[in-house]
């Protein structure tokens, strides 16, 4: 699947996360940048979840920026999926 345009989901609210997606030209791969208030403890976990969701939706080239404010795994997955679906065009903004 290809991201057709920039998209976003979430917020900077406590326990939430902000997901910003930007499409990249084919071949640029997956670029993930994570900023989190609990980066030391959960940075890797957030990275793993992000890769999982992107791979499960078959996206090859994308830039992901995440600002996490202590979100649970389920929230991270949900925001990522929403942002991706918006970027593909499946969900109305």
């Amino acid at each position, binding site marked *: 699947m290809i991201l057709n345009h*920039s998209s*976003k989901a*979430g*917020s*900077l*609210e*406590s326990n939430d996360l*902000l997901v*910003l997606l*930007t499409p990249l030209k084919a071949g640029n791969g997956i670029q993930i*940048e994570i*900023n*989190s*208030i609990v980066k030391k403890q959960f940075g890797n976990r957030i990275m793993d979840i992000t890769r999982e969701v992107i791979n499960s939706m078959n996206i090859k080239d994308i830039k992901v*920026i995440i*600002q*996490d*404010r202590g979100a649970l795994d389920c929230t991270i997955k949900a925001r990522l999926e929403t942002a991706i679906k918006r970027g593909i065009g499946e969900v109305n903004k």
Partner: protein
Amino acid sequence: MNLSCNRAIRHVNLAVNSEKHKLTTFLGKVGLTFDEDTEFSVVVETGNDILATASFSGKIIKQVAVKDDMRGKGLLQKLITEVIQEMNSRGISHALVYTRSENADYFKSLGFNTVVNIIPYIAFLEWGTESISQYTALLKNTIKSSDKVKHNTAFLVSSEESFHTHLTFIAKVARQSEWGYIFVVHDARSPLQTRKMVAMIQDGISHINNLHVFDGKEYVFPNSFPAYFSKGKERSHLWALVDAELFGKYVAPTLQIRSLYIVDSTFNNRPSDYNEIVRKRLVHWNIEILDV
């Protein structure tokens, strides 16, 4: 019985005079002005009243204000979320904030990193895909580690003027120094021009072994400093404090710079107060400023 209040967040149509005027009035009440180069503004409103606002221009988030009685209700986070999302959709993923020191903690809680905080005057914070630590790492990559304490020289040039006239002088000074570092003052309004200048200088100095050139970006005496929360003398003081701190705290130690030449008219357009204060502050960092 209280009706739940209807708070909506809305993009301001800056092209409509009445909207711009309403926002300007709100900002005026909290002692802020509306910078003419503002590209985008959001407000949180209830009915016809503005409760809070934030704007940006280029990479700089500015004109952030929340009505006193609306503090602590998560409005700042809503505003900044909206601003960052809009910046990102315009291809900007590095956000900068200059704010009074006492507000630094609010931005830190949202994930911003403090670059410098000159308490109690002003704090400079950033968020996103670029950072001051990435910049200093970039600078560090060009030097070889050594145990000797060095006395290196930096040169500040503008992106607008001709560099060739200064090349001879810079080369001469560089010969008397271990390393010479040329910083091109970043013009936020034309980053392309800045890049071109850096490339041109790179070409021009390629035959000189101990000279490097860098884009000053947001960190080395940048051209843009917001005017919305202070004016005149106060603004030039704050601007000078931040610039001197950035150079003295990050750039100079990384490259062991002890002298800084201001080449051509880089500082000519800046207020005299600014010039004076930058020099004084850099002396405290053991850096000598010289004019060409």
